[in-house]
């Protein structure tokens, strides 16, 4: 792996690390506050490495959702990640014949291909950064390191760490909805507006009529089903053929 790619990846990762650490700290605090041990919070960050899904895992574990159902729910939430690797490689032109060597270490760097790493990689490639596996690995694993370190700090501080700091607690409490809203804005397009509205309304209806868990499933399923049937998304899919 070339050193310049690794250096460029580390430089590109700095803002991600600065952002990841406090969000992961918030996750560590929230996890221990919900009754998880520090090791359980760390296991989620080390093994799963998917911010929004990890926050949802706290709620699913706390509500006693069966493990397999909870695991599949978290995995379903991350289905969007299926597109990230191919999109990055397409952007880099690395899918061309003869460029197969550039995927030699994809088994490693793809592990850290989160929403934010994907976004940062695309942004760097758009600005002229040359694709290399060293770049992708350095970018992803620097962000991963910050995420794991932030989780460890939050878990070590513990659930009661913020009791004397209500403003800080309010800020950290908003990290999760803030992350969801920012993610939503980052993938928002006109064609997705009906999907988002239906998912939101179904969540409200399911939660108020039955329970929070039912609301979650109602929102995700109704939004995805509407997306499959949506004329605008359908046209987009046909246009792409």
């Amino acid at each position, binding site marked *: 792996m070339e050193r310049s790619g690794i250096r460029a990846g580390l430089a590109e990762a700095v*803002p991600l690390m600065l*952002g990841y650490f*406090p969000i992961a700290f918030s996750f560590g605090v929230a996890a221990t506050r919900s009754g*998880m*041990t520090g090791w359980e919070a760390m296991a*989620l960050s080390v093994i*799963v490495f*998917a911010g*929004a899904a990890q926050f949802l*895992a706290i709620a699913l574990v706390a509500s006693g959702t069966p*493990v*397999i159902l*909870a695991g*599949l729910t*978290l995995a379903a*939430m991350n289905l*969007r*990640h*299926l*597109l990230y*690797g*191919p999109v990055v490689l*397409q952007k880099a032109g690395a*899918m061309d014949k003869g460029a197969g060597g550039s995927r030699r270490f*994809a*088994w490693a760097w*793809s*592990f850290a291909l989160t*929403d*934010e790493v994907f976004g940062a990689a695309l942004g760097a490639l758009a600005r002229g950064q040359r694709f290399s596996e060293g770049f992708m690995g350095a970018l992803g694993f620097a962000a991963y390191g910050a995420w794991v370190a932030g989780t460890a700090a939050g878990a070590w501080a513990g659930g009661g760490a913020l009791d004397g700091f*209500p403003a800080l607690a*309010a*800020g950290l*409490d*908003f*990290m999760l*909805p*803030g*992350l*969801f*809203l*920012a993610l939503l804005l980052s993938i928002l397009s006109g*064609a*997705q507006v009906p*999907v988002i509205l239906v*998912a939101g309304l179904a*969540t*409200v209806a399911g939660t108020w009529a039955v329970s929070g868990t039912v*609301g979650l499933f109602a*929102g*995700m399923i*109704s*939004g*995805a089903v*509407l*997306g499959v049937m949506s004329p605008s*998304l359908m046209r*987009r*899919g046909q246009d792409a*053929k």
Partner: protein
Amino acid sequence: MRSEVLFLCLIAGGLTYLWRYLPIRLDLGGMGTRGWVARFLASTGPAAIATLFVAEMLPVIREGGPGLVHGAAGVLGVLAVWAWARSVVAATLGGAVAAGLAAFVFGG
């Protein structure tokens, strides 16, 4: 560590890793741009994230009081920073700072 939490990590982490790696390994470059699979993948993410955002905000709205003020400030903070920086991380942190400032100024 509870075995069920470890099992949950392995299921969610294992499948998430497969989502990230297999399309590269199997050279599925066009998978995300055709037919109902493309529409399903394109809608699952927004549906899930919208659901989670609403699920997070519902208790805040229901309870009202200072939490609602902090939440509203946080939402405005995210929207403002997103409009300015177009960065998920910056917008998230901006929302958290706005919620924290609202708590500092208005109490709660």
